[in-house]
Structures are given as structure tokens and as C-alpha cells.
């Protein structure tokens, strides 16, 4: 590890490389904070700059853009309830209420520190156990990946413990929406009603932007008499200097920060799982272990820390299968892999042994990025926070237009804009009727992963379901799922008995 650290620092502390990484961090935070630009799009936009660089520096630069964009996504999630990246969706649960209370600076402070800690933990974990973890990740076949995704689904029961039935229905709606389009195994169309737009499936990003951003604007429209009052509150929130979290307040979240960073790293390492699953899972676990679970979702620091530490740690984790096995953990990692392949780098199991400078470069870049990022993101957040002072008569429509660009830019498809608008209206109904939008998003994220892996595992086991569920890792994970699903029910029965 120390060899890697030394090599990584030698590469990164070269003045020109350091400047490039700082530039990448700035680019990443700004791109991530733009609602129309996802983390993978940020990396894709930065790709042309990397073509001219040496491959070792190029990967460090792209990693800095990737890590910083995930952090940038948290800025808009807190200030406008628009998750810049899907993994920032759980950040809105506590971040936005805090911003509404006039504690935007504090919420952003917690988000940035948690992101930095998550990123640093993942960087050290990557350097320390990358080869070993990569070989464990290789053990994950379809049945284990199904178990991981099912663990994500069982998280649904924790998202809103007061309304489990409606939360589960919301999650199942998400799972059903994920079935729209081509069947993952046979390529047969399902629920398309002959529409070519639906054939490619329902995209997560337009749905998510609609459910969070458009719904929020509609909510404000419905109570437009109160907008003037909230404008005043928002003006308060722009006073960033006075409301930054203190060291003591940050120290109080140490447990959440540690748990979420470790969980995020582990989830990030698993091929196929990513920052989105990591942040949702971490938030749900926080609800389970928290001493005051009822406060989560009302605007407390633990909620922000759980989500942000996990999603940043997952970005580091996703580098492990990329560099050690040549398996990209997500879209952004796939783009980075393409850049390296273009440069003639042969990514695969031998890369760590034959060309350790790549792992060292990523490690060094993550260390530097996560430190520089706090300063850069705070400056960017201050600029963005100023936007909150704009009257809602201007800000509300602008949020909808940014959401529209975000939905459209994904595939340059106006069908996604219609999907976003529909999701926004349905999202408002969801809020009114007490259903859970986050559960729907989670169902949509996990739907295809669960189905395809389950069916693949079933085929590999020659149709023997016992074989699918008795593989050691699968069995342990499935027991954890059952416990997670049954726990709220037992709690409910015990509560009733005590009456």
C-alpha cells in the first residue's frame, strides 16, 4: 500500500498534473451541480481533454471529474431538490428540508465533508485491498447479484416505516415500470403497446427528475400564497458563512460516516451495483440503526451524511473492478475504460501487476480530489446558494426548464421530456395520497438487475431453485433480506401487543 501511496503521490504532485486534477475537480463539481448533466455525462464531456494527455494522467483527470461530479450532484439536491445525479436522490430527503429551514450552508457543509470522507475511505480501501476484493467480486455470479439487488428492494420497508404498505406498492410500481421494453433474456417486448419509444424501456433519469423537481414546483404552485414567506427563508439560507457545521457537529456524525463509507466502498466494488444503490441502502441502514429514526427525512445531518458518504465511496469502489478485472462498474467507469483502451492500455487482471502506475494514479487522484473538492465545492455551492435569493416566480419555472433539459439531454429524445412531465404530475398525486416517490425510483433502479440476474441464475442452475438460493453468499444475503422485510412487521405486532 505504501509503495502505491508513494508512487501515486509522485505522479499527482507533479505541478502540471496537480493543476489538471484541480481543473478536473472544478469541472466535475460544476457539471455535477448542473441538473442536466449526470456523472457519466460529465466524464464524457471531459473526455476530449483527456485525449491529449498521457494515459496515467488522463485516468487521474477523469477520476477527479467523476468523483467531483457525484459531490456536485448533492449541491442541487440540497438547494433545489433536483438530484444532480441519481445517487444524490436520498440526499434530498434531509438536505432539502434543512435548506428550507434556512440551513443550506450547514447541509452543504455536511454533504461535502461526508463526500470527502467517503471518497478518502474508498481510496485507501482501493489501495489496500484492491486485488483481494477483486477476487471476491469475481465470486459474485448472477444469484449473488440477484441477492444484492433483492437486498436493495428489501430496503423499501425502511424508507417510510409509518406507511409500509404504500411504500411497498410504490416500490412495486417501480419494479413494474422497469419491466417495460425488451425482456432482458429473450428480447421480447413487454408492455409497449406497439410504441417504439417504450421499446427501449423507461429511463430512470426523466422519471427521477420529474418525481423530485417537477413535483416540488407543482407543490409550491399549489401553495403559491406562501411563496413570499419561503423566499425570505431562502434569503436566510444564502448566508453560508454563519451556518457552516462546527467540528463538534461533524464529529457527532462519525458513526454514520464510517458505516456509510465502508458500505459504499463494498457496494461500489460489486460489478453492476453502483453509487445509487449504495446511497439508498446506506440511508435505509441508517434508519435501522439510528437512535432517532423518526427524525430521518425531516432534515437532519445523519441523512445527508449517510447518502453522500456512501455514493462517493462507491465511486472509489467502482474503480476496483475496472482496474483489476477490466469490468466497468457503471457508465462513467465504462467511459474511462474506453479512454484507456483508445490509449492502448490493456485493462484486465494483469494491469495491477504489470502496470501498477494506473492504480497508483487513481489512488493519488482520489486523495487529492477529495481534499481539493471541499474547497472548490464550497465556492461553487456559495454561488448556487445565491440563486435561492431569486424570487420563486422566476426560480420555479427555471427549475422546470432545467429538469426538461436534464431529461432531454440523456438521449436527445423529447419522449423523455413527456415522461418527465408525466412523472412530475404523478409524483404530486403520490405526495397527496401518501405514496413514496423514492421507493418508486429504487424499484426502477433495481428492477432489471434483479430480474435478469434471477433468471440467469435459474438457467445456470438448470431450473433448480434450491441451487440458486443455497450458494453461501446468496444464502447469507437472502437471510439478511428476509430479516429486513420481517423486522418492521414484528415491530408493528409488538407495538400493537403493548397496547
Amino acid at each position, binding site marked *: 500500500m505504501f509503495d502505491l501511496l508513494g508512487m501515486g503521490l509522485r505522479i499527482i504532485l507533479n505541478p502540471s498534473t496537480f493543476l489538471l486534477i484541480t481543473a478536473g475537480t472544478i469541472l466535475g463539481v460544476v457539471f455535477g451541480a448542473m441538473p442536466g448533466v449526470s456523472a457519466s455525462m460529465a466524464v464524457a464531456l471531459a473526455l476530449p481533454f483527456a485525449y491529449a494527455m498521457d494515459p496515467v494522467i488522463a485516468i487521474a483527470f477523469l477520476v477527479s471529474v467523476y468523483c467531483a461530479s457525484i459531490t456536485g450532484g448533492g449541491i442541487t439536491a440540497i438547494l433545489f431538490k433536483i438530484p444532480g445525479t441519481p445517487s444524490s436522490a436520498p440526499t434530498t430527503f434531509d438536505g432539502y428540508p434543512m435548506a428550507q429551514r434556512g440551513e443550506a450552508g450547514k447541509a452543504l457543509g455536511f454533504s461535502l465533508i461526508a463526500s470527502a470522507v467517503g471518497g478518502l475511505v474508498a481510496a485507501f480501501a482501493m489501495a489496500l485491498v484492491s486485488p483481494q476484493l477483486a477476487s471476491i467480486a469475481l465470486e459474485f455470479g448472477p444469484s449473488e447479484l440477484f441477492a444484492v439487488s433483492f437486498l436493495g428492494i428489501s430496503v423499501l420497508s425502511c424508507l417510510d416505516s409509518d406507511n409500509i404498505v404504500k411504500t411497498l406498492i410504490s416500490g412495486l410500481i417501480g419494479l413494474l415500470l422497469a419491466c417495460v421494453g425488451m425482456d432482458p433474456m429473450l428480447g421480447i417486448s413487454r408492455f409497449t403497446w406497439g410504441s417504439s419509444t417504450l421499446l427501449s424501456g423507461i429511463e430512470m433519469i426523466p422519471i427521477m427528475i420529474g418525481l423530485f423537481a417537477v413535483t416540488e414546483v407543482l407543490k409550491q404552485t399549489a401553495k403559491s400564497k406562501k411563496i413570499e414567506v419561503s423566499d425570505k427563508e431562502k434569503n436566510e439560507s444564502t448566508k453560508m458563512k454563519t451556518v457552516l457545521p462546527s467540528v463538534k457537529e461533524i464529529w457527532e456524525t462519525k458513526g454514520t460516516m464510517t458505516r456509510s463509507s465502508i458500505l459504499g466502498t463494498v457496494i461500489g466494488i460489486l460489478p453492476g451495483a453502483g453509487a445509487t444503490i449504495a446511497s439508498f441502502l446506506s440511508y435505509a441502514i441508517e434508519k435501522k440503526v439510528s437512535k432517532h429514526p423518526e427524525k430521518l427525512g425531516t432534515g437532519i445531518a445523519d441523512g445527508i451524511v449517510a447518502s453522500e458518504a456512501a455514493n462517493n465511496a462507491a465511486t472509489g469502489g467502482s474503480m476496483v473492478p475496472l482496474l483489476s478485472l477490466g469490468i466497468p462498474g457503471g457508465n462513467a467507469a465504462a467511459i474511462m475504460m474506453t479512454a484507456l483502451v483508445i490509449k492502448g492500455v490493456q485493462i484486465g487482471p494483469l494491469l495491477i501487476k504489470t502496470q501498477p502506475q494506473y492504480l497508483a494514479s487513481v489512488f493519488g487522484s482520489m486523495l487529492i480530489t477529495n481534499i481539493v473538492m471541499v474547497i472548490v465545492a464550497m465556492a461553487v455551492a456559495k454561488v448556487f446558494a445565491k440563486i435561492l435569493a431569486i424570487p420563486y416566480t422566476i426560480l420555479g419555472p427555471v427549475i422546470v426548464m432545467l429538469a426538461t433539459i436534464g431529461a432531454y439531454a440523456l438521449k436527445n429524445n423529447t419522449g423523455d421530456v413527456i415522461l418527465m*412531465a408525466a412523472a412530475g404530475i404523478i409524483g404530486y398525486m403520490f405526495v397527496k395520497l401518501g405514496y413514496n416517490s423514492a421507493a418508486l425510483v429504487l424499484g426502477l433502479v433495481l428492477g432489471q438487475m434483479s430480474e435478469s440476474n434471477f433468471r440467469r441464475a435459474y438457467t445456470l442452475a438448470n431450473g433448480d431453485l434450491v441451487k440458486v438460493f443455497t450458494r453461501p453468499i446468496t444464502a447469507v444475503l437472502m437471510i439478511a433480506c428476509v430479516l429486513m422485510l420481517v423486522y418492521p412487521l414484528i415491530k408493528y405486532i409488538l407495538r400493537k401487543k403493548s397496547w
Partner: protein
Amino acid sequence: MDIIFSIALIIFNIYCFFLVGIESPAPTLTELGAAFWPRIVISLMVILLIANLINQLKIRKEKTVHEKIDIISFFKSKLFIGMVLVSIMALSTPYIGFLTSCFGFLVTYAILLGERNIFKVILNSLIITFILYIIFQGLLDIRLERGIGIFRNLALFLEGILLNIKRGL
């Protein structure tokens, strides 16, 4: 409302249950078939929706005063107009392009939210439309929708200007 929503969703789910069966071939010994997973999801959802329905009916029975759904005032509300504006913007963008739909939406929604100074609204909307256009179309190369006919010509004209500026730089 919740009861109506649950019943509508149950009916839709039953329809989907049979639809997916017609669309996909029969399962084999080693392949579960395309209908298996959606049918599991639908079955679970119907069970939960029935549970929710029973729950809601119980609550309704316990309540002495029942909520009345005032449909007329809903259609007159700002919320409904807001939903219509968002829908119109989404549906019209392929035809009138980003520039026009963005400007139109910013103006109408600002008025809906209570802005009375029309000159200010138009000026702000115009400035914001161009800022968004320059950032996303010009700087980030995200090809925003051009629309058709005259709107397409306008978009192409502006794209030409941006391209010339970029070349000049």
C-alpha cells in the same frame, strides 16, 4: 381519492397480468419466460393494493365526516393550470423547439405564480432562455430540440452564430 386510485391500479394490474402472458412465449424447464417476473410483481402489488383498500375503507367507516372531492375547484386551481402548462410545454417542444417552448413556459408560469409586471416577466424570460441556450447548446454541446418549420430555421440560425463564435475563439 386513495380508494379510487387503488381500484384503478388493481384493474390496470389485472389487465397487465393477462397482457404479459399473451405477449410472451411459454416458459421452459430452464427458462422462466418473459411473463414470470412481471406476474410476480403484479400479484404482490394486487395483494398490497387490496390490503390498502381494506385499510382505507376501515378509516372511511371510522370517520364521521367524509371528505368531499371538489372537482370543479380543482380544475380552476393554480395547481391544475400548472400541470396543464407543464404538459403543454413537454408536448409542444418537438414542434416549436426548445427556444420557443422555454420562453413561453417561463412567461406563462411566472404569471401563474403571481408575477404581475408583464414587462419584467418577458425580459427575464428572454434573458434566461438565452443563458440556458448558450450554456447547454453552446458550451456543453447538448443539441437542444430545434422544432419544425420556422422554429427550426430560427434554431439553425442561432446555432450558426454560436458555431461562428466558437470558430472565432
